[in-house]
């Protein structure tokens, strides 16, 4: 893995598999009564969250703490950021505190890239979601979940068919997943109304469809993206009802999947809009599992980025 994790494209196939393997190893350790590893003792990991995202923040916090890192969480609300402090000054402050890794969530696409390449800080930068750009650890946890169900928790995802549905235009999850799942050999189909697909999407390494019913049959997994109701006011689609009818996942549609096909959602869900409660809580749903896997994958990312190359073997019974 390179110095930072800014984009799913930073990961080669070998590196991606290595992260997933490390995560699997760490998951086994987490089954023990004492979940904590001494690996990152004395290292400081900063959670720098310019956007509210409770689930991603606590997932990273849990990951860093289980590796015994000192964790500082810096949320935009109630901090100097809300008083107009710039990204640069916040970064310089963190640098002065000696952050070894900065996990950043920011509303501006490319903000983690700026942190990593502007010379403001020395530490490792992990992108925890930037604007409408990428969310590489979400893609890793999705790949981990897919691998667990579709490839016996080993290797890659060659030949597996994954359908990603919804607001691709504004989705960092979709961008990172298309890149990573392709790297791992999966065939990805994006399904959305044409208004919610970015210009140039036809050049992405995936197929495109406007028709969910045509894309689902035989697929190994479907990943539903959150659709914000305010998109309706910007004329991306006429109404919530029409969106649900054309692009929502209900039981009939989820039964079009392959027999062991799974249903995923990065959360938070709009039950009744992009997914029915029946499907979200149904037997194909692995949505809660995704959350658990998120901690292990993020542990693996920190573990590998912070250069703890030999401690895992020692710690593993």
């Amino acid at each position, binding site marked *: 893995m390179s110095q930072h994790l800014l984009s799913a494209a930073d990961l080669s196939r070998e590196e991606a598999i290595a992260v997933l393997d490390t995560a699997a190893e760490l998951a086994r350790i987490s089954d023990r009564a004492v979940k904590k590893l001494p690996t990152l003792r004395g290292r400081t990991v900063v959670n720098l969250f310019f956007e509210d995202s409770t689930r991603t923040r606590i997932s990273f916090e849990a990951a860093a703490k289980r590796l015994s890192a000192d964790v500082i969480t810096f949320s935009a609300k109630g901090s100097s950021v809300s008083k107009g402090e710039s990204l640069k000054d916040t970064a310089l402050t963190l640098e002065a505190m000696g952050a070894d890794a900065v996990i950043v969530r920011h*509303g501006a696409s*490319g903000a983690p890239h*700026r942190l990593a390449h*502007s010379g403001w800080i020395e530490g490792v930068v992990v992108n925890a979601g930037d604007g409408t*750009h990428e969310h590489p650890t979400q893609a890793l946890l999705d790949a981990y979940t897919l691998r667990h169900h579709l490839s016996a928790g080993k290797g890659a995802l060659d030949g597996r068919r994954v359908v990603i549905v919804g607001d691709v235009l504004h989705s960092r999850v979709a*961008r990172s997943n298309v890149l990573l799942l392709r790297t791992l050999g999966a065939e990805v189909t994006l399904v959305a109304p044409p208004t919610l697909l970015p210009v*140039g999407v036809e050049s992405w390494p995936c197929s495109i469809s406007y028709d969910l019913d045509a894309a689902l049959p035989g697929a190994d997994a479907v990943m539903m993206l959150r659709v914000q109701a305010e998109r309706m006011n910007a004329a991306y689609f006429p109404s919530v009802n029409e969106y649900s009818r054309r692009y929502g996942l209900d039981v009939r549609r989820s039964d079009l999947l392959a027999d062991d096909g799974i249903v995923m959602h990065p959360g938070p869900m709009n039950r009744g809009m992009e997914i029915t409660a029946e499907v979200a809580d149904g037997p194909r749903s692995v949505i809660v599992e995704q959350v658990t896997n998120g901690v292990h994958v993020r542990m693996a990312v920190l573990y590998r980025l912070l250069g703890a190359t030999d401690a895992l073997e020692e710690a593993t019974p």
Partner: protein
Amino acid sequence: MTTVLRNVRPYGEDLVDITWAQGAITAIDPAGTAPTTSDTVIDGRGLIVLPGFVDLHTHLREPGREDAETIATGTAAAALGGFTAVHAMANTTPVADTAGVVEQVWRRGIEAGYCDVQPVGAVTVGLAGERLAELGAMADSAARVRIFSDDGVCVSDPVLMRRALEYVKAFDGVIAQHAQDPRLTEGAQMNESELSGILGLRGWPAVAEEAIIARDVLLAQHVGSRVHICHLSTAGSVAIVRWAKERGVDVTAEVTPHHLILTEDLARTYDPRFKVNPPLRAAADVAAVREGLADGTIDAVATDHAPHAREDKDCEWAAGAFGMLGLETAFPVVVETMVASGGLDWRGVANRLSERPARIGRLDDQGRPIAVGEPATLVVVDPDSTWEVDPARSASRSANTPFLARTMRGSVVHTVLRGRPTVSEGTLV
């Protein structure tokens, strides 16, 4: 008091000596034959002499943002870039939408003295796009405003645009349109393309520029007015202006140096130094604007020199200000993109950097031929010398050049404004 500039090639042609007195050229003799009685002798070293450059589009930031640029520092940068006149854009604080503000800018330009400062007046009060500013008062003021622009903002209301085009006919004015449909570019960050989708930056479609240009050339034709298109940036815009000129519409257009040379790929760095309005476009657009400039569809190179305080660029892309410096790097960009490729000869460079912009702005004593009786408003350039862009050596108060640390070929050696040197051997006088 006479001065002789020895051994120069007007428009890159035969070597001559040029003598002037009281600001006007008094003699042009074959090289080495000018009388030796002049008070001052400048050695032109066989370099090229052109009429002083005229910039149609300069942000001097004064009044209001003197931390980014002042009329003094901006015009010093202009002189170093070979410019003898600049058009100061109206988006200052307060906005240049009254005779009082344009006269103040004009007077401050005279005080600074590095080049002529011709204020541009706002089309609408406060650039708000709601009602016309007192265009006639600005035209009749000491500043003699002829170009009106809400630059930075598009005059998007078609009725207001029509009225503005009609109204300025009374004093031979022109509306310089910043062509950007506001609804199609809400929150836009970069050229809309395959790359914007990958980078997750809100796209700025070419059609947002082209649709306004198409509308405005039709409006100008309908009401019999002239219209000028600011910083045209797409292949489609070139095609529309070409079509309009063929139909006889009185339209002129400018392109910036950065749109002649840089492409959207620089957005991959997420460094706001490359964030500009209109955005850097694709390679095919760059090729099209070069072709348009070469064939005369595009009349002028205009810098859109846009200084910004350091903190407004030292941030994430979305928070960064739009704009980049241009005055001191315009000439080498034209050399690299137009002269080296054969797109323009030196007559062509004089035409696009001096003569046509002066005519568009109705500046009577700028962009004149190099001939006896004409103003000694000249620039001596060395097309072959190379230099590295270094903000520390720039006269601008800001440092937001997209050419940081880039080696440029082509430099300005002397700039002369009505007989008075403003730059000598590459240094401000």
